[in-house]
């Protein structure tokens, strides 16, 4: 145990009602002792439930631990006590960004910049997010009325992660995934708008030609390949890769992604 932590621990033991827990938990967090930091921060929150600093601290620790839902709740509590708390605004902005809601992220960061004009990291983050909005043509889902903790994505753990997969509903709206142009631009929404029509046409063609329901469509282009499948009756999944992966293997990958999408849809829907 390092010297400062020892001192702080002693001070807290001497005077349990002091605010020494704030410094102690922060020192533990910085050293990576997240479980210990969490214990101290929770103790502080239960002793001082009206102290925004305590909630802010707990949120930082939980966020480092990967408990994003917990962090969201703790920062929300901090904001209820102190609506202009820059750290909490930054934290929630970060969580919204992780969830893909750039508009809500920007909103929180702008409030954070107002609350703490001296924090140079905030304008940098805002500039980055604005670039993101421009590239996506400003099409972003409106923030939920009562923000929910970020949900897990459909393609976690599958080769490529979110990128190169696109899950679309029957109305041509994106449910998950991301499709990037070589320039980095996310093409997902534009492609999604086309996919519902493709699915209807494929179903019609195989029905009228007496081939029964359709299973998949493989599209080979000189600079890439696509596989389309229908994980459920009213969704379409697109898997896109370059020619680095053989088409038959891409088919297997698409099947795995379809299974993952199906179980994700069951969980969220």
């Amino acid at each position, binding site marked *: 145990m390092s010297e400062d932590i020892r001192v702080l621990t002693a001070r807290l033991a001497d005077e349990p009602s002091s605010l020494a827990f704030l410094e102690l938990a922060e020192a533990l967090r910085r050293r990576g002792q997240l479980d210990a930091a969490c214990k101290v921060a929770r103790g502080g929150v239960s002793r001082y439930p009206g102290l925004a600093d305590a909630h802010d601290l707990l949120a930082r620790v939980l966020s480092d631990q990967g408990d994003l839902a917990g962090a969201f709740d703790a920062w929300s509590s901090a904001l209820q006590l102190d609506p202009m708390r820059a750290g909490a605004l930054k934290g929630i902005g970060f969580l919204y960004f992780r969830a893909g809601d750039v508009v809500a992220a920007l909103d929180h960061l702008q409030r954070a910049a107002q609350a703490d004009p001296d924090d140079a990291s905030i304008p940098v983050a805002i500039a980055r997010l604005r670039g993101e909005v421009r590239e996506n043509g400003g099409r972003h889902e409106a923030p939920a009325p009562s923000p929910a903790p970020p949900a897990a994505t459909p393609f976690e753990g599958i080769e490529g992660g979110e990128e190169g997969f696109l899950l679309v509903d029957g109305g041509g709206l994106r449910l998950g995934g991301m*499709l990037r*142009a*070589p320039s980095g631009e996310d*093409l997902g929404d*534009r*492609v999604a*708008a*086309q*996919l519902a*029509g*493709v699915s209807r*046409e*494929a179903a*019609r*063609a*195989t029905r*009228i*030609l*007496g*081939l*029964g*329901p*359709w*299973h*998949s*469509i*493989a*599209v*080979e*282009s*000189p*600079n*890439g390949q*696509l596989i389309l499948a229908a994980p459920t009756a009213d969704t379409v999944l*697109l898997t*896109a890769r370059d020619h680095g992966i053989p088409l038959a293997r891409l088919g297997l990958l698409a099947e795995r992604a379809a299974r993952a999408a199906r179980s994700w849809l069951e969980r969220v829907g």
Partner: protein
Amino acid sequence: MSTVQGVLDRVTRVPGVRGALLVSAGDGLIVAEQLMDGVDGRAAAALTGSLVGRLTRTAQQAGLERPAFVHLRAEAGSVLAAPGPDDLVLVAVVAPDANVGLARLEMIDAAARLS
């Protein structure tokens, strides 16, 4: 034998291919056909022409060039399509047990030779 008939011959010779047609994709009309009984050529031309058109637009939106081959797999068989020059598309309707790999090679090669 004309080039087009020769092309359709080569495709229909692949095991499991029930019919091959040359389709004008924009119109969805048959240019030439060689079909087994029970394959509705007019429907295949109209429906595949339209689907290939939509897939081409989708591929372009996804940053890809014009498709060279499309495989629509269904429960009781597949539709294969190889876009050629001038809005022409070579289409094959195949049984579930067809040799799709061989049909694909023949069709891509044949579609290129149509120009």
